[in-house]
Structures are given as C-alpha cells and as structure tokens.
C-alpha cells in the first residue's frame, strides 16, 4: 500500500498511516493535502474544531484570521483555546494549539479584522477558504472575495440548537449571493452572543467544515456544492438539501455581474446588511 511514498518522509508515512491505508484516500489524497493551503476566517466556535482537524490531517499551510482576544465565555465552545490564553489573541492561541498537535504544518497568523482592504491579499494566498465567522456582513464579504478570486468557500453556521453547512463557489455551483441576493432584515440576524448556542453544535458543524475543506483540498469525495446540510440538534436529525444552481442573475457570480477587485474594495458591506462587522 505504502509503496509509492510520493515524497512523504518516513515520519509522515507513520503519522498519516491511517489515511494512507484508506484505499479511497491513500498516498495521492495525502500528497494533495500536504501541498494545499486552507484559510480559516474566525477562530471561534466553528473555527476551533475546523482548525484542529485541518492541522491534524496534514494540510500543508493553514492561515487563521481573527482580531479577537480569548475570553472566559468563549471556552464553553471554543475548544482550541485554554484558560491560560484568556486575554491573549485568539489567532496566537489557535496557532499555538495547531503547532502543538502538528509541528510539520505551517501555520500563518493573520491577527487582524477581515476587511475589504486586506481580504484580497490574504485570500489570494490560499486554495480553500473556510467561513467560520458569526455575522452577515462578513459572510457577504467573504463570499464576494472568493468569487473575485475563484476560491471555493466552505461555509458553516450555528445558532441555538441548529447548524447549517454548504460549499459555495465550487465547480460551477452557486455562491452565497445566488441563494441570498438580498440581505435579511437586521432584526432577523442573531449572533451567538445575543441568543446563545449549545457549544457542541458549532463543534459538529466546524468538524464538518474541516471534512468539506479536506475533500476539496485532497480531491477525494463529493463536496457539498449545490447541496446543504441542516442539523437540528434537539431531534438529532440532519437534512440533506438540494440547492438551486448558480444564478445567471447573481450580482456576484452571474453572467452580467460587475463584481471586480475594485468594486469589491469599494463595497460597503456594513451598509448593505445594515449590520456592523
């Protein structure tokens, strides 16, 4: 099985042996992962498990964007952070945790708020983007940035006892704006800080985001493009949903879309969603 090592060192062959043994993943899947780079935007409830699994599995380079500091009320769900990091940067905390489980993965720290002014430069350095943020303007901004740069976007969300997951802008599938061309009214957009969340729900969704990012990066399996998973934690049920295709009228990815690097830079996402970033 392990005959063709594809440039893997003996240490790597040992570390990733459970992947190499998998006929449908194998040396090629692992080699693809090791060559890939994934950007995780948000080192909170979704980002915590996503980052740990992306680091553990052998993604070659992982970027982490966040400008928050670790607080005690994060620890109920943000399992990448420990009490020792309270008051310190989330990116630093998450990066240290990732390095401690896999020193052979390169971790890049982006200790800054994700804004139109830095988005293009940051995202352009990665193959896959994981949206692990918690607000509407960020979700539109990340989507548009990924459309401009042609990057697949693994999008997860969790609130209360529910979770949602899909992959946007991948392989001809829809983008976030294809589904949601108009932002919802602001009073319909609740954050975990306002309405609460059962901590393990973003845990499940964050793991599933890592799974989808791994599938995209390793070229193994069928990513959730044009499909969505819905989790209802109360009943413990998942719903597998078939979504619309790419919209020809989409203002981001449609046939007559005018989205460019420049229009992206000039777009006011806070005004568009009537919500602060």
């Amino acid at each position, binding site marked *: 099985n392990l005959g063709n090592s594809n440039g893997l060192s003996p240490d790597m062959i040992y570390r990733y042996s459970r992947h190499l043994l998998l006929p449908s993943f194998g040396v090629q899947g692992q080699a693809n992962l090791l060559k890939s780079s994934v950007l995780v935007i*948000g080192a*909170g*409830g*979704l*980002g915590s498990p996503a980052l740990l699994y992306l680091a553990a599995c052998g993604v070659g380079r992982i970027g982490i964007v966040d400008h928050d500091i670790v607080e005690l009320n994060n620890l109920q769900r943000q399992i990448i952070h420990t009490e020792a990091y309270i008051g310190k940067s989330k990116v630093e905390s998450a990066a240290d945790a990732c390095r401690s489980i896999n020193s052979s993965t390169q971790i890049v720290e982006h200790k800054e708020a994700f804004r139109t002014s830095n988005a293009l430069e940051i995202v352009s350095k990665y193959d896959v983007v994981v949206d*692990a*943020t*918690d*607000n*509407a303007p960020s*979700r539109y901004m990340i989507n548009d940035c990924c459309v401009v740069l042609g990057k697949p976007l693994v999008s*997860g*969300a*969790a*609130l*209360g006892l*529910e*979770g*949602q997951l899909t992959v946007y802008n991948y392989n001809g599938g829809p983008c976030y704006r294809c*589904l*949601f*061309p*108009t*932002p*919802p*009214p602001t*009073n*319909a*957009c*609740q*954050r*975990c800080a306002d*309405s609460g*969340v059962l901590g393990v729900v*973003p845990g499940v969704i964050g793991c599933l985001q890592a799974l989808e990012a791994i599938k995209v990066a390793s070229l193994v399996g069928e990513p959730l493009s044009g499909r*969505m998973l*819905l989790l*209802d934690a109360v009943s413990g049920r998942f*719903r*597998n*949903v*078939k*979504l*619309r295709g790419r919209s020809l009228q989409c203002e981001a990815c449609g046939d007559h879309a005018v989205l460019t690097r420049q229009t992206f830079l000039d777009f006011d996402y806070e005004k568009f969603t009537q919500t602060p970033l």
Partner: protein
Amino acid sequence: MQLTIEFGGGLELLCDSVKIHNINVDPQDGEKQGSIDIISSFFNQLTLKNLLSWVRTNVIKERPEMFMKGDSVRPGVLVLVNDADWELSGQLDTVLEEKDNVVFISTLHGG
C-alpha cells in the same frame, strides 16, 4: 390536502416554538376566509403562493414581517419542498401534492 410544514433557523419562534406542523389545507376553507389566492385553478391545485398565504393566516402567531415580504418569504429564508430548494420547482408557482413536506428555514450567521 395533508402537508407537513416545518420551521427552522428561528422561524419557529413566530409560531409558539413549534417546529413541525401537520396541516390539512382545503382550498374551500381558504375561499370561505375570503382569500382568493387559495383556489389557484379549476383543478383545485394548491401552489406555494397559496400555502404561504394560508400559513400566514393560520400558523404564524406573531411578527409576520419576519416570515413574509410582499407575497413571498422575506430575504434570508430558504423554502424547501421535499428537501429541494423551491427555486428548482418553480418558487411561488410550485404546485404541491398530497403529503408534501415544506420547510421554511432562516439562514443562520452565528458561529
């Protein structure tokens, strides 16, 4: 017509936090309520447009503006007919059949 309708992503809060509703929509009932939308044709077909109107009247208990805008759902709400996006079946013109499952789910932004 027997249908199952479900609410998620917070929309259940508009109907006493009940997520799953087994409903029986009779086009004739609708007419008696004075809603001309209920009968969509001679064939007694129920469209999603009719259903939305029926749901707003009979199921939604508060803040209907969090559910509908004009004669469609408000931005940010996905409508699923038997687990498929209603864009795939004709959106408001989707014709419902006996025992169909219709889900109204608000997109989440939390993390």
